[in-house]
């Protein structure tokens, strides 16, 4: 091969390789990003997007949560602290009691007055016992971690 051509090819290859490596390095230094949708306004379903958002935020990710439909209640000043969980239409509710594992509560019972309040109280007890943050606390952590909130 013509030595001049060979030298030219070598020089070009070096340039391209250097550029490719730089592109790769730039890509790796860009923070990971995550977008989440919060569309539910119940106490249990408010947790998943906020747990994921705060965890990803703690890892240095760029996170955005889009609040829509009933998820807007999580942003509502007066409603965020009053989110409830209802026992109706959820086959996993109520979970069997450890002391009475054979006791099955018919779904219809969940429709009685006061059952939503009771299920909510029960869930808040578990949350406190598991030392999990409350929803308002998670929102404060999310804001502190600069999670972007969209509505």
């Amino acid at each position, binding site marked *: 091969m013509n030595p001049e051509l060979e030298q030219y090819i070598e020089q070009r290859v070096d340039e391209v390789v250097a550029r490719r490596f730089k592109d790769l390095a730039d890509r790796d230094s860009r923070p*990971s990003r995550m977008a989440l949708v919060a569309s539910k306004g119940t106490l249990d379903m408010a947790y998943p997007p906020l*747990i994921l958002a*705060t*965890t990803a*935020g*703690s*890892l*240095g*990710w760029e996170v955005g949560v889009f609040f829509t439909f009933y998820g807007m209640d999580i942003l509502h000043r007066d409603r965020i602290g009053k989110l409830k969980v209802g026992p109706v239409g959820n086959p996993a509710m109520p979970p069997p009691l450890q002391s009475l594992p054979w006791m099955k509560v018919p779904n219809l019972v969940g429709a009685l007055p006061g059952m939503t309040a009771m299920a909510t109280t029960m869930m808040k007890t578990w949350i406190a016992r*598991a*030392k*999990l*943050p409350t929803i308002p606390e998670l929102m404060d*952590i999310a804001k*502190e*971690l600069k999670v972007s909130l969209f509505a």
Partner: protein
Amino acid sequence: MDAVKADAVLDCRGDLCPGPVIKIARAIQTIQVGQILEMQATDPGSPADMQAWTRQTGQELVASHEAGGVFTFYVRRNK
């Protein structure tokens, strides 16, 4: 290992995943770059969490050990 001297201590005992990760992400901001934060946790997932967290955030896991179900981590703030 015990020669590592911590500048601050964070107690995450009893916290479940992702509690320790969220707490340390906030606590690391309270110490200076180059200082070391000691963190204690009982969450069995915490060793894997701490490795992932230090790798992703560019902090350094200097040392760690476990005794009686309590994991202790020493993290140097790199940035």
